[in-house]
C-alpha cells in the first residue's frame, strides 16, 4: 500500500498539462502551414525560395519549443528574484533601439540586432511586466485593496508603456502591456466598481476621440497618422489607396472566402494584393482559404487555449503562480482579440500579430517561453485535495 501511495504521489508531482501543450502545438503547426501558404508565392518571387519564410519560422518555433520545455522544468518561483531586473532590462533594451544596435524595418525602429538574432524589446517587456507585476502584487499583500495600492499597480507599467509607444513607435504593444497590467490588477483586487467606472470612462473617451476626428474630417486636412487611421476605419473604401488599403484588401480576402473558403492554398489576395500577408493580416487569408468554417475553428482553438490557462490559473498553488498565468492569459487574449478585430475592421488598424500563427521569430519564441512558465505553474497543481 505505501508503495502504491508513493507512486501515486510521484505521478501527481509530474503533472503536465498535455491539453495545453497539444493546443499550442496545434496552433504552431497550423501557423506554419498558413505561413507557407500565404508567403510561398511572394517568397518564390523575391527570394527564389518558396519556403523562405517557412524555414525561418520553423527554426524560431523549434528554438522556442526547446526553451519552453526548459522553462517548464524550472520551478516558476525561480524567476521571482529576477522581477526587478527584468523591468530594468526591458527599459534598457528599449533605449538600445535608438543606438546603432537598433534595426529599422517598414519605417519603424523596433528591433534589436543581437549577433544575427533580431528581437523586439517590446516582446521582452511584455514578459518582464507579467513577472514584475506578479511579484509586486504578492509583496504588497493586502495593501492592494487600498486606493494607493490600486494606483501603484496601475502606474508601475506606465513608464515602460510610454517608452514602447514613444521610443519604438509601437502603440499596439504599449496597449497590450497596459492591458495585461489592468487584467492582473483586476484579478488581484477584490473590487469591481473601480474597474467598471474606469472601463466606462475609457470607452467614453475613445468614442469622444472618434467623434472628434470624424467631425474634423471636413475642417482640416492635417489629422496626423493616427487620425487618418480612424477615418480609414470608418470608411475604408474612401481611403482605398492610402490608410484604408490594407484593411480593404483584408476585407476582400475575408469576404471572398465565404462559408467554406476557396480551399487551402487557393487565396488570390496573397498574390501581392495584400502585402506581407504572412504577418499581421494572416487571419484574413485563413478566412479566404478556409472560409467561415476555418476561421471559427481557429477562434475556438484560441478559446480552448484561454480556457486551459483559466483552469491552470484557478488551480495554481499560490497567488504568484496564478498571476503569472493570468498575465500570460491576458497577453494571449488581448493579442488574439485585437488582431481579429483589426483584420475584420472592427477597430482601427494597428499592427498586432496573431499569436503562434503570424510570421515573426522573436514573437513566437517569447510566446513559447510564456507557455513554458504556465506549464511550470501547472506542474505545481495538486491533483487531489488533501
Amino acid at each position: 500500500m505505501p508503495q502504491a501511495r508513493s507512486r501515486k504521489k510521484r505521478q501527481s508531482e509530474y503533472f503536465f498539462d498535455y491539453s495545453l501543450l497539444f493546443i499550442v502545438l496545434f496552433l504552431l503547426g497550423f501557423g506554419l502551414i498558413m505561413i507557407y501558404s500565404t508567403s510561398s508565392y511572394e517568397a518564390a518571387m523575391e527570394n527564389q525560395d518558396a519556403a523562405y519564410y517557412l524555414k525561418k519560422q520553423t527554426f524560431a518555433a523549434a528554438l522556442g519549443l526547446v526553451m519552453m520545455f526548459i522553462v517548464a522544468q524550472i520551478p516558476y518561483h525561480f524567476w521571482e528574484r529576477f522581477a526587478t531586473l527584468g523591468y530594468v532590462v526591458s527599459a534598457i533594451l528599449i533605449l538600445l533601439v535608438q543606438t546603432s544596435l537598433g534595426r529599422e524595418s517598414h519605417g519603424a525602429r523596433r528591433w534589436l540586432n543581437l549577433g544575427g538574432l533580431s528581437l523586439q524589446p517590446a516582446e521582452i517587456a511584455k514578459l518582464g511586466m507579467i513577472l514584475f507585476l506578479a511579484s509586486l502584487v504578492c509583496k504588497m499583500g493586502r495593501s492592494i485593496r487600498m486606493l494607493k495600492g490600486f494606483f501603484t499597480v496601475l502606474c508601475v507599467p506606465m513608464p515602460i508603456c510610454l517608452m514602447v509607444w514613444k521610443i519604438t513607435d509601437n502603440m499596439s504593444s504599449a496597449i497590450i502591456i497596459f492591458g495585461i497590467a489592468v487584467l492582473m490588477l483586476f484579478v488581484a483586487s477584490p473590487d469591481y466598481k473601480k474597474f467598471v467606472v474606469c472601463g466606462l470612462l475609457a470607452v467614453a473617451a475613445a468614442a469622444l476621440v472618434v467623434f472628434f476626428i470624424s467631425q474634423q474630417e471636413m475642417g482640416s486636412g492635417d489629422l496626423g497618422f493616427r487620425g487618418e487611421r480612424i477615418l480609414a476605419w470608418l470608411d475604408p473604401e474612401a481611403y482605398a489607396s492610402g490608410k484604408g488599403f490594407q484593411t480593404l484588401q483584408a476585407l476582400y480576402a475575408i469576404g471572398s472566402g465565404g462559408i467554406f473558403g476557396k480551399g487551402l492554398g487557393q487565396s488570390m489576395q496573397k498574390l501581392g494584393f495584400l502585402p506581407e500577408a504572412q504577418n499581421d493580416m494572416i487571419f484574413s487569408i485563413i478566412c479566404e482559404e478556409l472560409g467561415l468554417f476555418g476561421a471559427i475553428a481557429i477562434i475556438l482553438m484560441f478559446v480552448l487555449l484561454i480556457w486551459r490557462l483559466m483552469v491552470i490559473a484557478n488551480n495554481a498553488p499560490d497567488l504568484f503562480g496564478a498571476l503569472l498565468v493570468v498575465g500570460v492569459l491576458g497577453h494571449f487574449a488581448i493579442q488574439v482579440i485585437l488582431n481579429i478585430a483589426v483584420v475584420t475592421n472592427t477597430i482601427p488598424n494597428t499592427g498586432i500579430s496573431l499569436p503562434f500563427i503570424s510570421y515573426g521569430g522573436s514573437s513566437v519564441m517569447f510566446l513559447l517561453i510564456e507557455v513554458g512558465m504556465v506549464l511550470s505553474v501547472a506542474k505545481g497543481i495538486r491533483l487531489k485535495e488533501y
Partner: protein
Amino acid sequence: MKNKTFHRKKIVTIFVGCLLIFLILAGRLVYLMVWQSDHYSEAARDLHERERSIKAARGRIIDANGVVLADNKTVCTVSVIHNQIEDKEAVIAALCSKLDLDEDYVRKRVEKYTAIERIKSNVDKEDGDAIRELKLPGVKVDEDYKRYYPYDSLASKVLGFTGGDNQGIIGLEVKYEEYLKGTEGMILTMTDARGIELDAVGENRIEPVSGGDLHISLDMNIQKYATQLAMQAMETKQAESVSILVMDPKNGEILAMANVPEFDLNHPFTLPEGTDTTGMAEKEKQDALNKMWRNGCINDTYEPGSTFKVITAAAGLEAGVVSKEDRFSCPGYIMVEDRRIRCHKVGGHGAENFVEATMNSCNPVFVTVGLRIGAERYYDYFKQFGLLDKTNIDLPGEAGTIMHKKENIGMVELATISFGQSFQITPIQLATTISSIINGGNRVTPHFGTYVTAEDGTVIREFEYPVRENVVSAETSATMRYMLEQVVENGGGKKAYIEGFRIGGKTATSQTLPRGSGRYIASFCGFAPADDPRVLAVAIIHTPQGVYYGGQIAAPVVRQLFENILPYLEEMDYN
C-alpha cells in the same frame, strides 16, 4: 497559501469576458463572410481579373460574282503592362525604334500607371513578331485584324475604308457598319498584384462574333472596265475628273461606280502624289483628304444640261401637251418674256417634229414644251419623278437637289429648267430618274447592298428597297425609249451607236458656274437594250480640254463600255 475565492471569480470573469468578445468577433465574421460575401467577392474579382478584348474579324465586302473587295489581314497591337515591366528604358528604346514612334509618346504610355496601355495598333505582322522576339517583360503583342483591300483603289469612293479601331470612315464601310463590325470577344484572366497572369487558374474566354459579309451588286469586272475608260477619258481630255455610273434601271442595283481619280484604300491618308503637303496646316490637309475621298456621283451636284430634256419630254408627254408627231420650227432662238434664249445650232434646226427635236437636242422646242406644261405643273412633275427627294442610295453623304422654290419659278426660270439649267442635281439622281422613266415608270432606289451572310454562309439579312410605281405611264415610258433610241441611231448620240445592239441615250454639255469661265461638263446617259433596258450608264467628264461636247466625248465612252459589258451581261444572263 491558497488563492482566495475572489481571485478565481475574477479569472472566470475574464474568461467569460473574452468569450463574449470572441462571440462578437465571430458575429462580425459571419456578417462579413455570409452577408457581405457577394460584395467583397465581386470587388476582389474586379481586382484580380484582367480583361483583354479580342477583336472580331470585320465582315468582308463581296461583289456580285463572289469576288472579295474588302478583306482582313492579320496585324498586331502592341501594349505594355505597367506592373510587368522590368527594364523601363529598354522597353522605351525598343518600342521607339521598332514602331517608329516619338520617345515622349512612348515614355508617357510606358510610365502611366494602368493595368494595360496600348502603344500602337495596326502594326505589321513582321514588326509585331520582331518585338515579340525581343521577349521584353511587360510588352504584349496581340494579333488582330486590319482591313485590306485587294484591288487597292478600285471603287475606293464606294467601298470606303476603316480607321484605327477598324470602324468604317466613309462609303459602304460606314453605311453597313452595324453588319460588318461584329461583336468583340473578351479574355478574362486572373493575375497577381503585379499583373502577371496565373496559368493555373485558366482563362475565361468570350469568343468574338465575326461581322457579316456584305454582298453588293457591284460587279468587279464592270467596275474595272469603267475605271479604265474613265482614266482613259480623263487623260486624253485632260479632264479634272471623270465619273462613270452603271446601274440596272429595273431594280436600281448599281453595277459600277467609278470616280477617277480614285485613291488607294490601303493608304487612305496619303494625298495624291505630287501634292505639296509642306506648310499645309492640319485643317488644310484634312480638307484635301476630304476632297480626295468625295464621291462625285453622290456628294456633288451639277447642272445636268440636255440630259434633263428626257425629264421635260416625259413630263410633256404625260401632261399631253406634246406628242411624237407634233411639229415645231426652230429659228435658232426663242424669246421668253424679254430674254432671247439661243439654240446651240446658231442657224436653227428649222422645221422638225418632236422626235427630231429630241434627236437634235433643240433648246427652243423644249422651252416651248416646258412653257406649255406651265410652272406649277412642271414643278409637280419634278416632284412626282422624285427629283426633290434624295435617291436614298446606301452610301453616306448624298447631296440634295438645289432647286428654285415653286413660287419663284417664272417664265425664264421655267424655260431654263426645261433644258436642264438653273438648278442642280447629283449624277445618281439623274441616273435614277431616267431609269424610272425608261423602265416602265417605276421609281427605284439605287443601291449596292443586296444581302449579308454570316461566317458560315447563311443569309442573315436580305435588303429590300422601296419602289414607287407609275411615276410615268407605261405608254410614256415606251415613247421615251423609242425617242432616245432615235437619238443614238440618228441624232446627237450616234457616237454611242454599236452595230447589233439597240441603244438609247441622251447627250449633254453643261457649263459650270460661273458662266463664261469656259469650263464645261460633258455627259452622256445611255441604256441598252433600248426596247427592254437591262443596263443604264452615265458618263460625266468634268472640265475637258479641247472638244467639250457630250455627244463628241462622253458618248464614245459609254459606247466603249457597252461594247464590252453588253456581251458580258448577256453571257451572265445566259448562265
